């Protein structure tokens, strides 16, 4: 246990260092983009105005409000001070909404779409990949090329194909929105059904591509493990196939679990393509809008969330590995 504690503390320390570096980069990098975010806001207001002085005054007003006229170090100090208060600032592009308000209103749509899609794609993909490696023959010959084809499908391609076939031509599913265009959210079977129906096309556009990628990865790992010496030895020992498969997939699963953790960590980035194609609410489009509008606070906050989630996911994986992979624990106790 002492060795394991050392392992844990070591990982925690690197987590903290990485987080600090990421925090700094999250602040600096968006602000290095060329262009003036305040000018973008003023552009919208100033169209059609005839008084030049009025536009100047508005520009000055927003510049002072957002501190964009101050040195970067001052802006960073304001940022640090506010973060410790739990205030991540106002969104430039959606002022006066706070960044937290902007993100919290759309993040749940993203999580609800991404999380099940990632999990389901991972489960189905890995199952198919494992089966292909184990069964081989015809099943593998069919699954492998299909998986390669589907996994390399661009996200917008899959989304548009599903939209055209099932939304526009067959009219089986709606073409846009998170729920019915004529509905207001309320607790009823009609509304729930509407949400489920609107969910299908964006969901499957993500899952189908995820399945392909996971199947290929799992198949490769499973084939590698199936050819390992310990498997041959176990067979010679007369151990049943069922037990051997358990050993094989436990080993083959490790890299896939890492990939799953990364996917979950980055899911907050949103399914941008699906959101645009299907006009599905979520954080991806909000982030894109923020990037295009040089909305520094929004970009910093969302990338910070992504960074934090990735770090937490990797940290959790490292800890879990310590438990499930005896080789890790053994290395730490040496």
């Amino acid at each position, binding site marked *: 246990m002492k060795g394991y504690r050392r392992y844990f503390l070591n990982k925690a320390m690197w987590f903290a260092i990485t987080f600090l570096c990421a925090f700094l980069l999250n602040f600096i990098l968006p602000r290095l983009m060329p262009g003036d975010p305040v000018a973008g806001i003023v552009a919208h207001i100033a169209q059609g105005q005839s008084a*030049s002085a009025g536009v100047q005054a508005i520009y000055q007003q927003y510049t002072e409000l957002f501190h964009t006229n101050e040195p970067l170090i001052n802006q960073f100090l304001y940022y640090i001070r506010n973060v410790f208060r739990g205030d991540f600032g106002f969104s430039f592009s*959606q002022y006066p909404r706070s960044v937290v308000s902007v993100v919290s209103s759309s993040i749940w749509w993203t999580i609800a779409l991404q999380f099940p899609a990632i999990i389901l794609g991972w489960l189905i993909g890995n199952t198919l990949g494992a089966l292909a490696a184990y069964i081989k023959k015809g099943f593998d010959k069919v699954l492998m090329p299909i998986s390669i084809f589907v996994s390399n499908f661009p996200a917008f391609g899959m989304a548009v194909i599903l939209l055209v076939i099932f939304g526009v031509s067959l009219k089986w599913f709606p073409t846009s929105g998170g729920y019915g265009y004529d509905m207001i959210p309320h607790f009823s079977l009609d509304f729930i059904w509407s949400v489920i129906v609107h969910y299908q096309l964006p969901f499957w556009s993500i899952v189908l591509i995820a399945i392909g990628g996971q199947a290929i990865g799992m198949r490769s790992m499973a084939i590698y493990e199936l050819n390992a010496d310990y498997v041959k030895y176990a067979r010679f020992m007369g151990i049943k196939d069922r037990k051997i498969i358990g050993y094989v997939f436990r080993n083959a699963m490790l890299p896939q679990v890492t990939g799953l953790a990364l996917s979950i960590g980055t899911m907050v980035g949103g399914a941008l393509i699906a959101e645009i194609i299907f006009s599905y609410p979520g954080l991806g489009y909000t982030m894109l809008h923020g990037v295009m509008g040089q909305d520094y606070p929004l970009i910093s906050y969302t990338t910070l969330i992504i960074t934090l989630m990735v770090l937490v996911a990797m940290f959790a994986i490292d800890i879990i590995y310590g438990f499930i992979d005896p080789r890790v624990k053994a290395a730490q106790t040496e």
Partner: protein
Amino acid sequence: MKRIYVLISLVVALGMLLSACATPTAETVVQTQLVPGATTVVKETQVVKETQVVQVEVTPTTAPQNLLPRDETMYFNGQQWNPVVCWNPYSSNCNNAMAIAAGDNSRVLMFETAYLYDMLDGKLYPLLADGPYQWDDAQTQITFKVKAAAHWSDGTPVTADDFAYTWATNLKYNTSAGGNFSPYIAGVEAVDPSTVVVKAVLNDQGVAANPLMAVAYLSSTYVMQKAWTQTVEARTGEDATAFLADAADDVVYSGPYHMYFADETKVILIRDDNYWGQDASMWGKLPVPKYLAHAIYKDNAAGTIALLGGEVDVSQQFNSNIQDSWKFLGLPISTYLPDPPYMIGASLPTAYYNLKSPGLDNVVIRKAIAIAVDYPTIIANAMTNQSATFDQVPRSLMNPTPGEQALYDHEAVADLQWAGNDIAGANKMLDDAGIIDINGDGWREYNGETLHYVATCPNGWSDWQAAIEVVAAAGAKIGIDITTNYPEWGDYQTVVTKSDAPLPAGYDIFMMWSDGAGPTQPWGRIYHLLSSQFVGMPVNWNGNWGQYSNERVDELLALIPHETDAAQLKSYYTELVQIYLTDIPSFTLMYRPQSFHTVNETVWTGFPHQDDGSVPPVPPLDCMDGWSVACLYNVSLVPAGE
């Protein structure tokens, strides 16, 4: 394995329930409080008190109607592209397209103006005002009456005091309206409860400095209730930042509709059945649709699919090749005009020259490029023929509306106008000027330098990019090397609007917008295109981004607002067109509608169309801007079975 599937199902179901049942975006009221013992910081001559912004979450009340009846709801697209932020007309940031869009053609669904502008006949029609406005004999002030029937949503009457207090508030907090009109409006006074006097800023001659802008104020600025404004001032401590950031969830309005529901996916307005406008002195009845709903689509393609599918009744967005929907798909979709250009052009997207680029200071080169451009291809590709061609409406400074076209002498400038694609003419012009290919590389030289330019517009603006590509292609045909570059909008705007220094390399030919239709047009458009007032501004959002300067133009721009003689006005405008088409500091690439206006008549009918017989004519501005709001009183349901 079975347990895993059960778990997955539960996670999926829970996730969907969570997202669906999430409360709509809470309205945020930002309040500023003075922190006791706050630090006082002296900044040069300004004392700034540190304030603490307190956010108060205001949750909108739950709507009783959860499914909008299709026969009571009119659906829109193309106005709202992101979630609504607030309901405060004093703010410039509410991103609330359905309720707040004051300007040349103010949106009057929730908040109202004194007058409504009709872009089809160029007239102002009374809304909150009672009868026409009057200038005094000295042309120093405008007087109008307030309709006796006009009242606010809380039942109190709209009075002249509301107009006066609104103006004072706009000035005090330096709102967009205040900043725009303060050089032209000296003050707004309430002579009595029903009489408003708008005092103009006077020039050296003791008359209104700009009568056009003074009149434009009447239709371009919302009037707000004095009592509600004072409520907001009290809760924000009269702090300008907090005042402008107030979410205004409790706003008092005078218009026929108000907020019903808004979240990340849509915004819905509901009719106020107590609306004063049903009085005989105004519309005589309520608007027909009970609900006005706008789903938030992420791009034009999604909006077009919804329009074709009958989920949108009125579309204010560019729908590519919209005519295919009725010609080939047989859908009950139509535009204002049945044939190209389908829409009424109002603004003139313009290619500006950087007049300091080598060679572009030479009018021969500027004209050669301009006349060589294939404008029909631009209109066919970028606008899918939703723009008049330059054969149909020869280029000038005026938009295609009959009112503006009548303002200049067409014959006097006919020899200066070009329709484009004149490769032979451009080549001859350049050859005659001695601008030829000396070294045989295929490109002409001028002053020893190969003519090479970069044509540019913001990345992602696909119709503009299509136009710029055509401009570049024209260069190749006349021996001028024009390449294209598409920086991001954030970068582009920063460069283009910096008018206190020469434009950098890479911005030799660049696109920007122009004014559309409005009470000050075409003067406003010409002012923004050509006035030297904007040259030298460090942040120039007004116009003349190519930094053109012409004294006679500035003189004419100063004369026009004061000219009342129609013949003299026509001569001024004609002279301006002549100067513009001679100097060519920029050139129009296409005509663009004030608003795109496409309707699907599956559920509703009676929308404005050309020659529909409406008097005054109802403009195709999506049933909400200026006089086009009359459309909401004229529509009816399509009879069952049709």
